[in-house]
């Protein structure tokens, strides 16, 4: 249920982003070599989900990835210290390492391209969700903390994976940004698998 809500919320804000970005892009605002631009919706096959038609600009994608990584890295740092089971602590530590590495890649690419990540409804929503998750986790302890943290990690990584597949990767225009997103996909997929395994061994769902 929580996951379904998160997916719907993300799709909703991505949709808002996409509609907003169907207007012509002001390319003069960025250096000529910076090809992070807005795109118009692609023709949507009949069987496509609504999310596939939504588009975001490259600077917005960068901001979304940064926000997503930061939120999960922060929660991971908390799990590393507050988690009870060794698996949860180890997983939290891995989130700090991997999502930190992902953010360094995004920052380095933006710097290389001379582009500035552009905050948007989706990145703001991810920060808000991250803050709410942290507030919720701060009030828990013991096995209740472990369960809530892992449940959220499963939902979060599934949401991000869906966003990568249906919106972020298809929308990315800069080849290097698209390649970075494609390189990030297996990171998120591996995290999702690990979180699900931990979740199953905890007797959840």
């Amino acid at each position, binding site marked *: 249920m929580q996951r379904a809500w998160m997916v719907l919320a993300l799709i909703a804000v991505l949709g808002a982003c996409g509609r907003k970005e169907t207007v012509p892009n002001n390319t003069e605002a960025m250096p000529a070599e910076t090809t992070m631009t807005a795109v118009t919706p692609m023709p949507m096959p009949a069987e496509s989900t609504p999310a596939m038609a939504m588009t975001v600009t490259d600077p917005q994608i960068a901001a979304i990835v940064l926000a997503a990584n930061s939120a999960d890295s922060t929660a991971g740092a908390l799990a590393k210290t507050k988690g009870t089971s060794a698996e949860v602590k180890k997983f939290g530590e*891995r989130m700090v*390492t*991997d999502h930190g*590495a*992902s953010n*360094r*890649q995004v920052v380095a690419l933006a710097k290389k391209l001379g582009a500035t990540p552009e905050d948007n409804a989706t990145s703001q929503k991810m920060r808000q969700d991250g803050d709410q998750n942290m507030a919720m986790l701060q009030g828990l302890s013991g096995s209740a903390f472990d369960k809530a943290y892992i449940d959220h990690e499963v939902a979060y990584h599934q949401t991000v994976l869906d966003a990568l597949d249906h919106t972020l990767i298809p929308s990315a225009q800069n080849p290097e940004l698209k390649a970075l997103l494609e*390189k990030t*996909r*297996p*990171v998120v*997929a*591996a995290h999702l*698998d*690990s979180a699900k*395994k931990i979740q199953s061994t905890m007797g959840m769902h």
Partner: protein
Amino acid sequence: MHIVPGHLRAARRAGARLLVVPTLLALAGVAACAERAPNAARPTRHEVVIDNFRYLPDTLAVAVGDTVTWVNHDYVPHTATAEDHTWDTGSIAPDSSATVVIRRAGAHPYLCTFHPTMRGLLRAR
């Protein structure tokens, strides 16, 4: 099976050179011997690339005495760790590598301890 740090491998290679280079004649003799015995057991260096959270190739045939080097092309660290923990590369940083020497015949299933969904297999003869 154990990890051979790069500087030790270099030292061993340097040592080997010292043994075979005293004279040009000796060097030629060693080379000639090598040519006459192509089937002699010379360790082979294998390479496994880590890319997009996969070992490529994920299954590799090796011989006892061979070396296997894992090269990490991902932007996060990985390991190659025997499931029975008889060998372990430890953390392989992005764009870095680590090498192990195969010391035992048989199947060596291994995984990344950081990302346990990553699995590989060495078959040593």
